[in-house]
């Protein structure tokens, strides 16, 4: 972990765009975990987790490596089903429906819960085919409808102007930051409710990181975003709510301002001020 020299976390600038989240009625709960436990083989990765993720807000999951934050993220769209030996118990719901049901239709779940990975992973296909991949799986669309969806998705991912003249060239020709925005466009093109992001900027340079962060702030009015990050400033800049994980347990969860300025737990304070991690 390299954290900057600890200054007061309060000095981290908060962007103006951040919300009037606190006023009015509390937002509806989208993903809800109660007494949630997860294992990889015999290793217990998450213990007794209880956490609410509200609709149309950005929730940041922070904590040192191996603390279980990515594990939790990967259970929300059941990506852990691809991992041999991974299992989970307890309650984990999306809009009140259980996520852990063995009979749960994973295709339908993943259409509702999109994911962006740490390393940009565009398919070795054209830019257009990358974005159209998901919609083609799930819906019959006319050519015009699909064209429109691809354009709107690329616009929403703030990459349209850079690629509109080369939609049918390979996505592998794009830069790392462009590839990651393309992956975001690909994920939102299926029209998900929730967007999971697993350290989406860790493989990117600072400029690309800034553009992805701007994108997250733009998308938060339509999508419920859960982002795992190692970068404290990033969590502070983009999220409305922050959850701090440590050694498989949720230590503290609350409005981002509170977590960074006035945490209740000593552990959280030590971590966000860079004293360990």
């Amino acid at each position, binding site marked *: 972990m390299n954290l900057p020299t600890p200054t007061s976390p309060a000095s981290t600038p908060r962007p103006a765009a951040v919300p009037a989240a606190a006023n009015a009625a509390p937002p509806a709960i989208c993903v809800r975990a109660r007494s949630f436990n997860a294992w990889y083989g015999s290793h217990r990765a998450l213990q007794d987790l209880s956490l609410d993720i509200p609709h149309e807000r950005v929730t940041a999951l922070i904590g040192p490596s191996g603390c279980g934050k990515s594990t939790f993220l990967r259970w929300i769209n059941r990506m852990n089903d691809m991992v041999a030996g991974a299992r989970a118990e307890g309650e984990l719901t999306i809009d009140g429906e259980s996520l852990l049901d063995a009979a749960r239709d994973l295709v339908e779940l993943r259409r509702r819960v999109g994911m962006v990975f740490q390393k940009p992973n565009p398919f070795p296909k054209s830019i257009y085919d990358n974005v159209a991949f998901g919609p083609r799986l799930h819906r019959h669309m006319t050519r015009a409808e699909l064209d429109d969806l691809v354009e709107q998705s690329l616009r929403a991912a703030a990459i349209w102007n850079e690629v509109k003249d080369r939609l049918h060239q390979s996505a592998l020709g794009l830069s790392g930051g462009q590839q990651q925005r393309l992956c975001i466009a690909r994920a939102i093109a299926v029209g998900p409710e929730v967007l999971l992001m697993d350290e989406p900027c860790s493989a990117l340079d600072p400029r690309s990181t800034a553009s992805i962060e701007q994108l997250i702030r733009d998308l938060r*009015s339509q999508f419920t975003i859960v982002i795992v990050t190692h970068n404290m400033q990033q969590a502070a800049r983009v999220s409305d709510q922050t959850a701090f994980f440590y050694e498989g347990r949720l230590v503290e969860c609350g409005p981002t301002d509170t977590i960074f300025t006035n945490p209740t737990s000593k552990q959280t304070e030590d971590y966000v001020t860079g004293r360990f991690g």
Partner: protein
Amino acid sequence: MSAVPSSQGQRVLEAARCGSPRPTTLRDARERVVRGLLLLAAVFSVLTTTTIVGTLAWETFHFIRLPEVTLSDFLLGTTWSPLLGAEKHFGIWPLVCGTLLVSAVGAAFALPVGLITAVYLSEYAPPRVRATLKPVLEVLAGVPTVVYGFFALMVITPALQSLCTWAFGRPVFPGYNATGAGLAVGVMILPIVTSLSEDALRAVPRGLREGAHALGGTRFDVSVRVVVPAALSGIMASFFLAITRAIGETMIVALAAGGLAQLTFNPASETQTMTAYMVQIFLGDAPAFGVENLSSYAVASVLFVITLALTMVGNLLLRMFREEYE
């Protein structure tokens, strides 16, 4: 839907609701059918093994039950004369001996040469040399064995004969002999030894080499005293798999080793291997159910058991090596 979308995100969600959803029942059915078909394909390979084991066991059983054959004679006998003479003998040892003799000559050539070539390619060779040598080895690996048989018959044996005439005054080697065939087998398995050993050597972590160099080792010390021992199980695996190929090799020995089954370890003698015997039987229009035909099934059983055992040891070593470094 609002008439004027308030944000770009909303425009995406609206565009994503166009068209009609694809039915999920068709998708799930297709998934199940495909999985079933793929499993069927995978089971075919098990079926192949079952057929091999079943057929060989069944026909060998019939062979053993023939009046002119006994199990102890087959497994312990030292005379193999199924075709000539009034009394036929079916003792497997001369054929096993011939097979081992030819394979030993091949291994004596290919294992050291192949390993040293692998060490050179992995530890010494500049990239340009590697880039020319790898295709040479690939071509050698791709040459059909019948061509190596022709090579043994036309080039290696005559060369051995002239060498001996020059040195000892007589050719020593007859036209068909174990050494000529064995050397050709050696050339054939050389690329197997080299490429598998080289893979093993290259899989050894860089840190180990750097550590040995830092202790002041020469390149020889590093490669022979550190890298080769570290890759030993992988190298042994390459030896086992190459020897398996040598034992099962057919066309080279059928052309160049001769047709005389005898219990000898003299590499200059004519010899018959298990595979060459089978060629002799199947080329000779043997009746489908005669004793000669059945004897070839029994020989095939012995060959199968030997090669299977060697392959299993080789694959076990390979897995041990991979678990160590991957």
